[in-house]
């Protein structure tokens, strides 16, 4: 499951400005700006969400029905955890 995670991580790392404000928390009037910047930096990129570009069927029976109707094979991936969120 984790074998292929190194390359995307390196790519993602290029996007990240890894600073910390622990030593000097921002003033009240700067807090919102600092938080918004950090959310933007850390949010998953489109490249990291390519899983969503696949047309996943809702469940196995739906996939089988579509496969029969359109003469296509079913590709079934079974896993522990939640592959759709990366918590797997």
């Amino acid at each position, binding site marked *: 499951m984790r074998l292929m995670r190194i390359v995307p991580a390196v790519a993602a790392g290029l996007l*990240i400005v890894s600073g910390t404000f622990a030593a000097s928390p921002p003033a009240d009037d700067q807090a919102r700006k600092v938080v918004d910047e950090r959310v933007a930096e850390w949010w*998953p990129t489109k490249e990291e969400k390519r*899983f*969503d570009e696949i047309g996943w*069927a809702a469940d196995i029976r739906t996939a089988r029905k579509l496969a029969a109707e359109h003469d*296509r094979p079913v590709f079934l991936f*079974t896993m522990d955890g939640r592959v759709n969120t990366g*918590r797997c």
Partner: protein
Amino acid sequence: MRTGPFSSTDVIKRLNASFVPVYAVNEDYRDGGSAPKEEQAEYNRIYREALEKKFSAGTVHVYVLNPKGEVIGSRHVAEAAKTKELISFLDEVARYLATKKGQPLVEPKAQSAPSKHDKGSLVLHLAARGLGGGGSWDGTAENWVVYTPDEAKALLPSGNVDAGTKWDIDPKLATRLMVHVYPVTENNDPKKNEVREQTLTGKVIEVKDGVALARLDGHLVMRHDFYHKPDGKVVETSLLGYLEFEPANGKIRSLRLVTDGATYGGGKFGVAVRSE
């Protein structure tokens, strides 16, 4: 798989054009899981049929069925996770079945989504990523935390709201979010996380045109085992965020929260939360 072959253009194209892709979360398909019985039965049939046909089989696996639903091949995840090998497997299946390429049979859409919720609920979306130093897997992970309309109001200060008003966020409500503040690991059962220290306080910075802006500050120390066995590893972080709300009716317009200096297992990580 998610950040490997399932992020490969060549794999995505093949799955969309020649297959009906579907994934099954084992937890949902086990006895007592949330998947309907008929779904669980079909999952088990596929597993058993793969074994009977001497194909590889397991819980973390790729299976391919022909249009009739018969198992015609499988791959262990260790093999399927190699993009080139998975492409070769997909091409082999498509050639064997003489599958005609076409458009995806299901419109691609975001696969990470919140649970069903009532109008007026506060829906928080969390993203976690490693920031170097090891201690966690690479890539990103997401969670959703939903507060009912009443719970969302309970996150706000009671009484008059003026600049300088301070309050403590209800620890029980805060914990629902805090248990997801950890990097990308194998153990994703929040019930196994042990919150040891937790604070989350608010301070109103300004009230303007009926909208209050409050700053959030917090701290978290939480045991989180990397795998599903005790390893003594601990999440430690400060938190900073803001909350924009309407004091008159208790409506939250926006909530954002980020970790500050988060560490786990010798590495650094970041978590960002935003209301959707």
